[in-house]
């Protein structure tokens, strides 16, 4: 499970450094889903982002030597836990990053806590990671279910979508998404007209969509993910739901899903993300570089999170002069330093491990408005960082006093 990349050629430069330059050695492991459901939103793209982060950082800090390995957890908590254990114990990895799939992320978080190393979650969504299951060795970057629910829910109600109907995947993640979004909608003054639960990995949503259609709700919230979301949207187009005046709110949708649907089917879909490749010139330039390794694909916010997370970790490593044996100390250092990276801009990491940054309400463009490949979204609203994530006090994180 080692694809070892030594990025250590800078050692030659180090030789000139002499006693003043502190040699910092870091080993980072990108643990992701390389081969199944989340391979597009995380996977090899995360490894590419990691390489870029390391290359950019070591260019400015020649005294830092970083070794990168990667592994495939295949969406199985057993394998993820096994790899994490082995990496921390045997392979002397200091930081594990990414891990799409909340079940695996929770398992790895435990391992990081036990071994006192560092774990940065970019790929997984469970807001519990900074809630009841938080610990002093884990940082949650990019996004979580609370932010998705709140961002999409509140923002849509504010722009006029005040009656909702939920199509929910019948398992813990779907219920959580539904519950959080319902709370956000009602708090913003909207009404929930009804909901229907469908089994996970359903192929055919016709009966559920019919119910949604007859409820006459202005917004149909899709509290599901992956293939279920894509099927719901595809079939909603078939039944003319969006043409009939209702809009679809995807509570967990990535750029790769939009690419899979194609703009004719996905147009009008409203969703929330914390990073989009086409938002500004910096992002566009970064994306071009990223695409050299991943031709034909588009980076997701998860890839951006891996880049930013590693950058911040390396800054902390330098501040600690390379002393990385105490994971809790490193995380504390990361929380004490404000973050500043090209992709997410300025931000902070809260005591519960939650990285906060602004979120963006996005709408999928009509095919006619899309000028070039990858031109998926219109930005409908920006949610400021202090509103985008769950308030610190409400999380029930044991690290937060009270």
């Amino acid at each position: 499970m080692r694809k070892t990349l030594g990025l250590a050629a800078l050692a030659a430069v180090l030789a000139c450094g002499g006693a003043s330059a502190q040699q910092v050695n870091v080993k980072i492991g990108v643990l992701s889903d390389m081969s199944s459901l989340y391979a597009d939103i995380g996977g090899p793209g995360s490894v590419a982002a990691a390489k870029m982060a390391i290359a950019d950082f070591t260019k400015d800090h020649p005294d830092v030597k970083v070794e990168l390995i990667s592994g495939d957890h295949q969406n199985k908590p057993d394998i993820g836990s096994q790899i994490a254990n082995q990496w921390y114990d045997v392979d002397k990895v200091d930081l594990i990053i990414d891990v799409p799939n909340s079940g695996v992320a929770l398992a790895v978080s435990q391992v990081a806590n036990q071994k006192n190393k560092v774990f940065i979650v970019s790929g997984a969504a469970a807001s519990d990671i900074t809630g009841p299951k938080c610990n002093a060795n884990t940082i949650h970057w990019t996004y979580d279910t609370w932010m998705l629910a709140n961002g999409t829910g509140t923002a849509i109600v504010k722009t006029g979508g005040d009656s909702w109907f939920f199509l929910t995947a019948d398992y813990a993640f779907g219920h959580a998404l539904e519950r959080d979004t319902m709370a956000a909608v009602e708090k913003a003054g909207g009404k929930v007209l009804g909901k229907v639960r469908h089994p996970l990995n359903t192929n055919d949503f016709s009966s559920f969509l019919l119910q949604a259609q007859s409820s006459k709700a202005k917004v149909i919230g899709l509290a599901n993910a992956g293939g279920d979301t894509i099927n719901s949207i595809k079939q909603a187009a078939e039944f003319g739901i969006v043409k009939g005046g209702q809009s679809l709110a995807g509570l967990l949708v990535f750029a790769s899903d939009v690419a899979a649907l194609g703009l004719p089917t996905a147009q009008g879909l409203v969703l929330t993300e914390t990073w989009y490749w086409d938002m500004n010139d910096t992002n566009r330039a970064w994306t071009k570089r990223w695409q050299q390794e991943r031709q034909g694909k588009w980076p997701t916010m998860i890839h951006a999170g891996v880049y930013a997370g590693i950058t911040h970790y390396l800054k902390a490593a330098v501040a600690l002069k390379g002393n990385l044996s105490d994971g809790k100390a490193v995380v504390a250092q990361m929380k004490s330093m404000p973050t500043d990276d090209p992709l997410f801009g300025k931000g902070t990491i809260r005591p519960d491990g939650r990285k906060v940054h602004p979120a963006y309400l996005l709408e999928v463009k009509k095919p006619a408005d899309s000028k070039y490949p990858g031109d998926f979204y219109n930005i409908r609203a920006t949610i400021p960082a202090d509103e985008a994530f769950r308030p610190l006090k409400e999380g029930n994180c044991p690290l937060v006093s009270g």
Partner: protein
Amino acid sequence: MFEMFGISSQALFGQLLIGLINGSFYALLSLGLAVIFGMLNIINFSHGAQYMMGAFAAYLILQYSGLGYWPALIIAPILVGITGVIVERLFLQWLYKLDHLYGLLLTFGLALIFEGVARNYFGSAGLPYTVPESLQGGRNLGFMFLPNYRAWVIGGSLVVCFGTWFVIERTRLGAYLRAATENPTLVRAFGINVPRMITLTYGFGVALAAFAGVMAAPIYNVSPQMGSELIIVVFAVVVIGGMGSILGAIITGFGLGVIEGLTKYFFPEASNTVIFVIMAIVLLVRPAGLFGRRA
């Protein structure tokens, strides 16, 4: 309109119609499986992967030749059917003398290969494929809005299903096929090329799966795992109908689609499991399935 069991007849007929649509896919797929098992005694675990290959073939045909849905409906099954023929010649023919469990294991392995390769080249999110222009939109039937495409699905599958049944049960070619499974040596003695018939039969069963895949592409997500999600349910359908019974597969497919549709309305959380429960019951009461001959 009138009320029955507390729900309006509108909703009821709507659900029944939708159930029939689902049932069409079940019927097409279980038909292919039944043909293959009935004629070859092989459990074709790669049927789901071949369904997926049909959908992917439709996508690729569109990408590379610009041909749309209607040509794909013919070309894709032929292409995938040819791969089926290759599979049979390369792998399956060595297994006929063995326990049929080996056929199951081999096709299971093939399914993993097909799915893995598809995933590596195309990613797992899925590929876009839209409903053809001529079938877009729908009509309001009063009790529900029926997309035109879905009406075509029901019609198309009924035609293909009963066409296949007719060929196998009522024509001479079908009679040769059926005779060959019962007594290949005797049939060969009559000068009929039995191995070639078997190969073509497998190819045909695979082509049926691919045909279902093309029909599915506009409305279901075209992803590498689309087959594996469906295959277990289809097995249950075939077992309930009676493995090897063509008519059984068709009728059970449509019937179970309707039952599943009704369950989705009354008790959605159980809609996954209802087919398996029925399968367990049927196997206990009638081990050969509803329409099967004695195992």
